[in-house]
């Protein structure tokens, strides 16, 4: 009973933010001389009105679930992981490299191996700033941003010089056995849209995230560190090593993005894949309040805006969608605070 009430209350801020952001967006549309109602009608009918549109939204939401989890793991342990962009890039490249380099064999081996390679790449890229924080106390925000730059430069160098198909900026294709099937092939719905089985992987990752936090000793310790670092020390939790582990797990979540983009969609890695998904993941975690179900809902919502933006491209500037996203994020942050205060007030 109280649980449902809590869920209802915590959904209130994002829902209100969505409505207000749409209203603000309507003003913007009016300002550029268009009719907001027809623009929104297209935006929603093209995304939610067809199976293809829904498939596109799910496809756009999949990587956001991974990067949202990545940010949320950090937040729960009191760490601000701004490095998902770098982690997902390294992870995706590793996935593509494994998919191309592993000997031909059954998908039952190839697919998990490629996914694990991506997780390992992301984990490494997360663990490095984690180590720097644990060992030297240097702040993870700075470290992870720097690691993003290092990843971008390093990957550009490696792909361009050693690993690209001539005259392109992408890697050779992965083995057919490593490809993740698209859902329209498996089920027949979502015809033509690139949504693929990595969506299932995202659901599994959410379940694993929830289980890890609520049911495991490791998750408990990470939550103690995030909520009260003094209590963590008092309880003899190995704070330093746990910080490294938390950052590695966060990186591994980002590293899963390659399963969607590489294994499920393009079947190769291209420079610039998934760019910005990492930062949007922070917004997803914020809006979803670091809760797995919240993250899924928030990712779907941002996925809707991502794809919806493409459908109204001809009518309004594409920046509109970026503005809407930013509005939602700001409003959620503000409304969460305001609502919390007024709830407290109402309760006395």
């Amino acid at each position: 009973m109280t649980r449902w009430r809590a869920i209802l209350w915590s959904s209130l801020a994002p829902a209100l933010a969505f409505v207000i952001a749409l209203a603000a967006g309507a003003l913007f549309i009016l300002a550029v001389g268009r009719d907001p109602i027809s623009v929104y009608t297209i935006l929603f009918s093209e995304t939610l009105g067809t199976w293809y549109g829904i498939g596109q939204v799910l496809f756009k939401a999949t990587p956001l679930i991974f990067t949202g989890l990545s940010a949320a793991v950090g937040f729960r342990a009191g760490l601000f992981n701004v490095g998902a962009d770098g982690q997902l890039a390294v992870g995706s490249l590793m996935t593509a490299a494994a998919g191309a380099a592993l000997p031909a064999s059954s998908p039952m081996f190839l697919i998990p191996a490629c996914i694990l390679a991506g997780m390992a790449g992301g984990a490494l890229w997360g663990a490095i700033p984690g180590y720097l924080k644990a060992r030297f106390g240097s702040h993870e925000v700075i470290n992870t941003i720097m690691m993003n730059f290092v990843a971008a430069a390093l990957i550009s160098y490696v792909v361009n010089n050693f690993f690209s198909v001539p005259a392109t900026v992408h890697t050779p294709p992965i083995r057919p056995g490593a490809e993740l099937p698209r859902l329209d092939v498996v089920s027949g719905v979502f015809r033509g849209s690139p949504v693929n089985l990595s969506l299932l992987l995202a659901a599994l990752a959410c379940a694993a995230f929830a289980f890890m936090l609520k049911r495991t000793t490791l998750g408990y310790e990470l939550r103690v560190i995030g909520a009260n670092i003094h209590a963590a020390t008092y309880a003899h939790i190995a704070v330093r090593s746990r910080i490294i582990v938390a950052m590695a797990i966060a990186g591994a979540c980002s590293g899963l993005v390659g399963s969607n983009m590489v294994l499920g969609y393009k079947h190769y890695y291209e420079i610039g894949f998934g760019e910005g998904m990492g930062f949007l993941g922070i917004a997803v975690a914020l809006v979803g309040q670091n809760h797995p179900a919240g993250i899924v809902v928030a990712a779907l919502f941002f996925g809707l805006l991502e794809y919806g933006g493409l459908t109204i491209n001809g009518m309004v500037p594409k920046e509109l969608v970026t503005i809407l996203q930013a509005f939602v994020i700001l409003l959620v942050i503000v409304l969460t605070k305001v609502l919390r205060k007024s709830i407290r007030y109402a309760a006395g």
Partner: protein
Amino acid sequence: MPAVEIRHITKRFGSILANDDVSLSVRQGEVHALVGENGAGKSTLMNILYGMESPDSGEILVDGRHVFVTSPAAAIVLGIGMVHQHFMLVPALTVAENVVLGREPVRRKIFLDRDGAAHSVAALALRFQLGVDPGATVAALSVGMQQRVEILKLLYRDARILILDEPTAVLAPPEIDALFGTLRSLKDQGKTVILITHRLSEVMSVSDRITVLRHGRVVGDVETAKTDRMALARMMVGKDLELRTHSPSAVRGEPVLTVRNATVNTPRGLPLLHDVSFELFSGEILGFAAVEGNGQSELVDLVCGLRLPDSGSADLQGNPAGARVAHIPEDRIKRGMVGEFSLAENLVLGRLHDRRFARWGVMNLDAIGGLAAGVVRSFDIRPPEPGRALRKFSGGNQQKAVVARELGKESPLIIANHPTRGLDIAAADFVHGALLGQRERGRGILLFSSDLGEILRLSDRIAVLFRGRLVAMMDAGRTTEQELGAYMTGAALKAAS
């Protein structure tokens, strides 16, 4: 005409009636004590008077006039100020800067008049005999001094009615005496003081009148001179309570903890703990008496493995002391609990290596739920909801949870550091009983407390730390508060040398 009159105040939080038709009248120029157990409604009543809560019904009169105190800012305009348990000071600023903060004297409209601020603060300190240096940085001040800064803040804003919420909870005995001196000088100059507390000895020594609250109702309103501690305790608790008297241990056995020549230095090499040696036996309570900052924190950290000695050793039954020692920490909110976590989750903090509660890295929620249900029952934690966030419980119930967790650990040694800080009589008595029970079961207990009465009542032996050295080790039955005080302040050493 009373300075403050509270008439028929009622305040309800959900299903709890925090104040039930409370009326109270405080005379101009008196120290009025408001006493009662935890959850009796003292803080709620004062929060209403200070404008932090609004009453459901009832009225407030200041100097005979009806007032509506809608916010702390409105309260200050009416001359009502409050010193909270947790100070609200900016550590990096000076005393004068803190005092004038929010009402700074300015020159030419935009420049802070530092000299003017320092002057007026110095004049105030002198007038009320507060003895605080206006130029000192707050971070460098002792807790007692910081409290005086809080009082100065109110006086600077011309408060005539000062509310002090548990002001002695954070103070060492000499500081308490100084605070009482301050209260008397405030009274002499016509200020009215309302003192929230549950330490009866303090009430008796400093107040003029006492109002007793129980379960949100006024159960007594008496002149201090016409009552005594037993009568007050009876009113607070609602029944006769036998205060525990000292009873020596019957089961003292083998050494549990052996500390040898332990020295802990600051990073610069100054000694915090110097060449301390002692043994603690099973079935014994060894009390440590010391004024805050004389090495007891370092000793605690050393014994529970949070800190390594620079030289010497602390051994628990032959092994280096460490992680699994049961430890009731001094600062419950900062170290002892995770407020956002549920009561049940807090009960396994530091206990997940226990195979009952987690195996192969997976927590056993059934076992943890069972543990919580048992603790709620045996420690009478209210409300009995293991899933509720611990920060939503009262301080006394939080402390019970921490004590329950630590006593539940399979450790031959228990460190009890201020185990009853902030607890009311009944809850403190419960914790004392629990500690004595553990002693009977053959565990060794190190007891740290700033309450000498508590140390004397519970301990078998008493050690005194002064400036990091162990300066005395005595049988509890053969010493007195006066003798301990002499060692604690170093007076005994000077007399001897």
